[in-house]
C-alpha cells in the first residue's frame, strides 16, 4: 500500500539503471542522510557519537570492504583486521613523515597501501578456491599482525610499541587527537564512509561489479565468457583491502586514538565477517545493518539492565549478553539466512502487496 512503485515509469535507461529507481527509496535515503549528517550530531550525546556511531560506521566500512570480496566475489577472507592494520600503520607512517599534508589525504592514501598488500595476498586465489583460500588470508592475518609488532620502524621506534594518533586539523578544526570533539570526528568519519559507500555502490552496479558477481556465482562460466579470473579476483582483493585499509586508518585516528598490534587480531576479522553475513552477503545496505546489529546489540544489552534498574553484576551481564547475542544470531539466521538486507526486502515486498498475504 505505502510502498508501491505503481505509476512510476522510467523513460530512459539511465533512469532505469539508477541505484534507487523507486521514489520511496530515494526519499528514504534522503531522510537517512539528513538524520545522519544533521540530526545525530545535533542531538546525539558524546557516548552515542563516539562509542556507538563512529565504531559502527568504521565497521560498516570494513564490512563493505569484506562484502566486496566475500559477498560480491565469493572469496572468503579472514584477514580483514590485518588489512585494516595495514591502513592504520600506513597512515601513521605517512602522517608522521609529512605532517603538513592533510590527514584526509593520508587516510585515503593508506587505502592504496592496503590495496597493494591485499592484492599480494590475493595472488594464490587463482589456484586455491573455496574455504581453502581462507588459509591465504589467515597467513596475511597472522603475518601482518606479527609485522606490526616486530618492525619497530612501523611505529617510529616508539618504546610502547603502539602508535598514537597525533593531532591533525581539517579546516582548522582538530579531527584527530584528544582535542577532537566527538562531533567533528563523527562528521569526518561519516563523510568518508558515505562517499566510499557511494563509490562502492557505483562499482557493484557496473561492469566491475558484474564481473565480480559472475566469478562468485560460477567462475568457470565467467572464465569461458572472457572474464579474466585473476584480474577480477585481484581487483576484488585490492578494492576490498582499500576499504579495509581506510576503515583501519579511521579506526585508529578517529576512534581509538592509538593502537597496538593486538587491536587487529583475528577476532576482529571474524567480527566483520559476521557483520557481513548477518547483514547480507552481497548487499551494501546489509553491511550497515550487520555492523549496527553486531556492534550495537552488545552495547544495548549491556546498558539495558542499568537502564531498567535491574541490579545485576557487570560480569553476569556480560555472560548473559554473550548468550543472548548468540541466540539472536541463530534466530536471525533461521528467520532469514540471507541476512537482514533480505529480511528488509521481504518486508518491503509484503508492504507492496499489503493487505494480501501473498
Amino acid at each position, binding site marked *: 500500500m505505502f510502498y508501491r512503485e505503481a505509476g512510476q515509469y522510467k523513460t530512459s535507461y539511465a533512469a532505469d539503471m539508477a541505484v534507487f529507481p523507486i521514489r520511496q527509496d530515494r526519499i528514504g535515503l534522503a531522510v537517512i542522510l539528513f538524520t545522519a549528517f544533521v540530526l545525530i550530531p545535533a542531538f546525539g550525546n558524546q557516548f552515542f557519537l563516539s562509542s556507538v556511531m563512529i565504531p559502527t560506521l568504521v565497521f560498516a566500512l570494513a564490512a563493505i570492504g569484506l562484502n566486496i570480496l566475500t559477498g560480491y566475489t565469493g572469496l572468503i577472507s579472514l584477514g580483514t583486521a590485518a588489512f585494516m592494520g595495514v591502513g592504520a600503520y600506513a597512515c601513521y607512517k605517512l602522517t608522521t613523515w609529512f605532517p603538513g599534508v592533510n590527514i584526509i589525504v593520508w587516510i585515503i592514501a593508506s587505502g592504496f597501501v592496503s590495496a597493494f598488500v591485499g592484492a599480494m595476498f590475493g595472488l594464490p586465489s587463482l589456484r586455491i578456491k573455496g574455504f581453502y583460500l581462507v588459509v591465504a588470508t589467515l597467513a596475511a592475518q597472522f603475518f601482518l599482525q606479527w609485522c606490526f609488532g616486530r618492525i619497530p620502524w612501523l611505529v617510529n621506534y616508539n618504546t*610502547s610499541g603502539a602508535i*598514537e594518533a*597525533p*593531532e591533525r586539523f581539517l579546516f582548522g578544526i582538530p579531527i584527530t587527537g584528544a582535542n577532537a570533539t566527538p562531533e567533528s570526528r563523527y562528521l569526518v568519519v561519516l563523510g568518508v564512509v558515505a562517499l566510499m559507500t557511494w563509490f562502492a555502490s557505483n562499482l557493484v552496479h557496473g561492469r566491475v561489479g558484474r564481473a565480480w558477481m559472475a566469478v562468485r556465482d560460477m567462475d568457470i562460466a565467467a572464465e569461458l565468457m572472457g572474464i579474466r579470473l585473476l584480474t577480477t579476483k585481484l581487483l576484488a582483493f585490492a578494492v576490498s583491502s582499500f576499504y579495509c585499509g581506510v576503515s583501519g586508518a579511521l579506526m585508529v585516528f578517529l576512534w581509538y*586514538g592509538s593502537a597496538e598490534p593486538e587491536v587487529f587480531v*583475528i577476532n576482529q576479522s571474524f567480527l566483520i565477517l559476521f557483520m557481513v553475513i548477518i547483514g547480507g552477503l552481497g548487499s551494501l545496505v546489509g553491511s550497515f545493518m550487520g555492523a549496527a546489529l553486531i556492534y550495537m546489540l552488545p552495547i544495548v544489552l549491556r546498558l539495558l539492565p542499568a537502564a531498567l534498574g535491574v541490579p545485576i553484576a*557487570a*560480569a553476569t551481564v556480560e555472560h548473559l549478553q554473550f548468550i543472548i547475542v548468540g541466540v539472536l544470531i541463530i534466530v536471525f539466521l533461521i528467520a532469514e539466512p540471507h541476512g537482514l538486507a533480505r529480511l528488509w526486502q521481504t518486508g518491503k515486498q509484503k508492504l507492496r502487496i499489503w493487505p494480501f498475504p501473498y
Partner: protein
Amino acid sequence: QEGVYVPLFTYRTGPFAGSGIPIADGMRDYLTMLNERDGGIGGVKIVLDECETGYDTKKGLECYDAVKGKKPVIVNPWSTGITLPLIPKASVDKIPILSMAYGLSASARGDIFPWVFNPPDTYWDGLGIILRYIGQQEGGIEKLKGKKIGYIYFDGGFGKEPIPLFEQMAKDFGFELKLYPVAPGDMQNQSSQWLSVRRDRPEYMVMYGWGAMNPTAIKEAAKINYPMEKFVSIWWPGEDDIRGTDGAKGFKMINWHGIGTDFPALKDIQKHVVDKGLSKANKDKVGELLYNRGVYNSLLIAEGIAQAQKITGKKMVDGADVRRGLENINLDEARLKELGLAGFTGTLKLTCDNHNGHRSAFIQQWDGAKWVKISDPIEPMADKVKPALDAAAQDYAEKNAGWPKRTEPCDKAS
C-alpha cells in the same frame, strides 16, 4: 545515590579472566569495606560501578565513554592496551588515570603526564629490581659479565617494553640477552621457546607474562628441568598459575605487598564484606596475591580521594581534585598503620613530578604451597631507568606534536 563515582574496569570474562577476577574482587572489596565500615571516605560514600572490558581495548574504550558522562573521579583501565588511548584523553576530560604498575612507563613523569599515575613501579623498575636480585645471587652485579640471561615475554606491548632497557643493561653489565617471545595466540603452546631455552642454557630466566602464559611457562620450565630458583618473574603470576604444578617449587617473582589476611584492613574486609556476603570472591581466595593486588590498587584510589578532600576541603571531590590528591599521596608507616595496613607494603610518596614512586620491592619464592618472602626490599636501578624514562617521555611528547605543556599548578605538599 550521592557519592564520589569510582568506576572499576574489570575483566571477569575472556581469556585473561583468571587474573582479572581476583584483582576485580580485591579492588571492589576494599572500597566496599570502606563504605560499610566508615560510610565511605571522609563521610562521602563511594559509588562503585564495574564495567566489564574482557581485556579488550574496544570494550575498554566503550566503558570509558560510558562512565565519562557520570563524572568519574578516577579511571582504572587495567590493561595497557586500554591505558594508551586514554592517556591523551585524560587531560582533556580531566579524569586522572591510575594504571598501577602497568601502562606506559614514561607516564611516571608527572610534569609531562599530569593526569596519569602508575605507582609504585614501572616495568623498567621491575627489570632493575630483578637484575639487582640476580646480581646479589651471583655475588655482585659485575659478576653478570659473560653470563647469559633469557627473557621470555608476552609478545605484546607489555612484554616488549623492557627490551630496550634490557639490551642497554646487557651492554652495560656485559651479559648476553636471549629473547623468547610468546605470541598471544600461543600462550598455551610454548614448547619451542623452552626447547630454545634448553639449547641456549641461559643461567637465569626472566619472565614478563600474563594470563595463561604464566602457568604454561612454569609447566614447560619444569618439563625441561630448568632450575626454578633461577627463574624470576615480574609481578603478575598468581597462586592459581602455579599451584599444583610439579616441579614448580623454587619459582620466584617480584612483589611489593603482603599476602594473606593478617592485616587489620583485610580482617575488616572479611568482617564487613565477605562475611556479609557482599563479596563475589570465594572466601579462601581473599588474601591471595592478586586479590591483594586489587586491594593495593583500591588503597591508592581511596588515598587519592582522601588527600583530595584534605587539600580542597570539599567532601564531594571531582576528577581534577583527585588528580591533585594523588600527587599528594604519602603513605608513610604512620599512615599505613592508620589505615590498618602496617607492614602490608612499603612506603609510597608521589609528587607533581614523580607519579610513580619507583619504590623498592622484594622477591618471593614458591615453596610448593605458598609464596615465601625471601629477600629484603630491593631498590630499582634509578640511574639506568631515569634517563631511559626521561628520553621516552620526551620522545612521546615530541612524536605527539602539540602535546600540552603541563599547566596544572603543583600543590605544595601539606
